[in-house]
């Protein structure tokens, strides 16, 4: 549903940023014995919208516990709104196939659930939002949440909580803030109750109920260990070339604000940037996003003044978040909501991003593979690409006989108008719209190729693939960060 007054992307700021009111809780008797009790107390019934955050990632038990309860009661027509879905959420498959879960609204989907939805089993609709679009939708009332289940590693009897204490600690809790403040009912689920909270990231004034369970998650899956920088020579070359183009553009200077992902190539880029900054005595202003030990290290070495954290990827990040006042929390709204007054992404100088596909107009797909199987989603991709001064996509040009460049992407996640540079092992292409960047690179004779030339090179290597035909059964849509629909999702052909 698109609210009146919205102009589809192309405008710097959405025309309409309606906001509903916060909902402080009136409840004083908050403790419940179980999730079953919560369902009874809140009279959770058919057709409701239930939300979750994804800070426990692939170690999350909470969503599955709620699914269990839905299954027991055979509730139907449920809309599930988890901010991300991981392989551990496999129990959702059965509930989808039986029609208990009818609609899904999420920012990222992977694993068996992704496969099931791709194959057309969801009886309703899949809506893919971005990390910034989700809080926008919640705060505007577009995504009306009946009950928000908020997994919280440490909670006190009032319902205040944080993610830095307890056996299932996960660090910053950026993705739950909008659910907490705007959902009709909020149930905090924890495995660690204490009156000695070091910080109160969750404000108990918004919490209706508290349920204590044995375990909210598996630490192994929550902080899946530090990704190491890639050792693959081709990926390393791409990482090196990424820093070269940043350097040639004069981006590596004092005050730099930077964001990169948590994958092997992204971390390699951070490592090479680190060396360069140390060599040239550069002091950046901030690094942001999902925070890894590499970024923590760079901050502690004085390379970035501050860290802005929406989620912690490893134990080092959690440690730093807990102990360092310059390692700041950031709600998803502050991070990426286009309706937020001082949204962080607009202060970013450079962001490094990936792609499963990119097309000749620089449109990027990170939602599906070339067959149409869901395997991800924007997450913060579209938000950071929009906000940053320079957005850089890194990818192999060809991987296992699959060219990355298509004439047209299978699914449009991030519009080409927000994508500036594409770095591959066989050349770098600059979006022709960025005449300023092209000029700057011409001045230093930096080698560039057009994206068409890169495309032809990749076809020369692999041969021309037979185009994959889409089915015509619609299973959902991709919603850009301002609420406009930018693409349709189709069932995969069997």
């Amino acid at each position: 549903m698109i609210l009146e007054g919205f102009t589809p992307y192309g405008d710097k700021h959405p025309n309409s940023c309606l906001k509903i009111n916060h909902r402080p809780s009136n409840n004083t008797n908050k403790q419940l014995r179980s999730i079953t009790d919560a369902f009874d107390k809140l009279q959770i019934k058919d057709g409701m919208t239930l939300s979750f955050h994804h800070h426990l990632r692939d170690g999350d038990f909470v969503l599955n516990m709620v699914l269990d309860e839905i299954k027991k009661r055979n509730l139907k027509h449920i809309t599930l709104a988890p901010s991300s879905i991981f392989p551990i959420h496999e129990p959702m498959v059965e509930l989808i196939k039986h029609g208990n879960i009818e609609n899904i609204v999420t920012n990222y989907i992977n694993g068996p659930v992704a496969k099931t939805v791709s194959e057309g089993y969801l009886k309703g609709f899949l809506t893919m939002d971005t990390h910034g679009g989700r809080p926008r939708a919640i705060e505007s009332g577009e995504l009306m949440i009946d009950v928000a289940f908020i997994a919280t590693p440490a909670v006190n009897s009032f319902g205040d909580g944080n993610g830095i204490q307890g056996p299932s600690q996960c660090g910053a809790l950026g993705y739950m803030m909008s659910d907490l403040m705007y959902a009709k009912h909020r149930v905090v689920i924890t495995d660690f109750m204490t009156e000695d909270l070091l910080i109160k990231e969750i404000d108990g004034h918004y919490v209706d109920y508290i349920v204590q369970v044995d375990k909210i998650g598996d630490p192994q899956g929550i902080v899946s260990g530090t990704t190491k920088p890639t050792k693959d020579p081709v990926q390393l070359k791409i990482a090196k070339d990424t820093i070269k183009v940043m350097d040639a553009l004069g981006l590596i200077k004092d005050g730099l604000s930077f964001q990169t992902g948590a994958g092997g190539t992204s971390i390699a880029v951070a490592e090479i940037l680190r060396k360069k900054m140390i060599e040239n005595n550069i002091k950046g202003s901030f690094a942001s996003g999902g925070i890894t030990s590499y970024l923590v290290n760079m901050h502690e070495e004085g390379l970035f003044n501050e860290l802005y954290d929406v989620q912690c990827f490893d134990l080092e990040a959690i440690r730093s978040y807990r102990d360092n006042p310059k390692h700041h929390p950031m709600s998803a709204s502050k991070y990426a909501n286009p309706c937020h007054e001082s949204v962080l992404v607009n202060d970013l100088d450079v962001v490094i991003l990936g792609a499963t596909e990119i097309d000749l107009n620089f449109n990027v797909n990170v939602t599906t593979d070339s067959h149409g199987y869901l395997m991800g989603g924007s997450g913060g991709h579209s938000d950071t690409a929009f906000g940053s001064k320079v957005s850089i996509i890194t990818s192999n040009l060809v991987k296992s006989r699959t060219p990355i460049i298509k004439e047209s992407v299978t699914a449009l996640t991030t519009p080409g108008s927000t994508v500036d540079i594409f770095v591959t092992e066989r050349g770098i292409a600059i979006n022709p719209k960025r005449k300023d960047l092209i000029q700057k690179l011409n001045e230093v004779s930096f080698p560039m190729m057009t994206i068409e030339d890169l495309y032809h090179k990749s076809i020369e290597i692999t041969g021309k693939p037979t185009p994959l035909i889409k089915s015509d059964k619609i299973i959902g849509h991709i919603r850009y960060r301002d609420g406009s629909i930018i693409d349709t999702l189709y069932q995969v052909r069997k």
Partner: protein
Amino acid sequence: MRRSLLFIPSNSPAMLQNADIFGADGVIFDLEDAVSISEKDAARTLLDTFLTMYPLNKLEIIVRINQIETSITSKELEKIVSDRIDTIMLPKATKESTLILLNQLRNIEHEKKLTKKINIIPIIEMATSVLEVSDIAKVERVNGLLLGAEDLASDLEVPRTLESLEILMPRALTILAAKAHKIDAIDTPFIHKDDDEGLVKDAKFAKQLGMNAKACIHPNQVEIINEIFSPSMAEIHQALRIIEAHERPENIHKGAFSLDGKMVDKPIIDRAHKLIEKAKAWHLL
């Protein structure tokens, strides 16, 4: 004119397909040590179809064949020699085996009616080869010598060390032989692929001794090697100044002239020209 030569195992399609992206001046497609005995046939055929069908960027194509032990033309050479390759790299080279290779190359080129003459880089990796290195360098078509320090150390029955004292003489002799015959002196690869600092130290030392290129066993080493064995910007500027000064009307007919208080004569001017030639070939200018 080489600075870096990158070893690529011939039996790995993933590596073959990316051989040309790392900026090496030449790639050594290895049919010898990087390929197990049971896979030699597969590697040969794969390299052959690869060189025929894959759109490779322009660089020197070198093939390291297996050791030549008899004068019977190897099936390998028969298959590999074609217009698509530039150079054969000969392991465990001796004067005798180098001459045999030269002969076989001539025969095959004639047989296949090739339009080009394929060059040879012998690998100096035995004590006997070091002692006859000058004779190896003077063989026709030999346009570079590669020092193979790992096998050489085995032959000398000493451990191979980071300090590299054990290969000091062999390095020097290889360099002397190469330069006496105006061909490339290519240093042995640095085998510790995660030690960039060690690589830089080793390469700089080799350069100081007189090596003008170095083999690489990992793509990450190429950029470092290229940088060390390329003339620096300062050296390029100085060479340009020397050439420009020489071409001034007051200097052009003199045998020697003065620049910055130093004497500039023919050897210095020639060196300056050679340096600029290299700088242009390597796109530094």
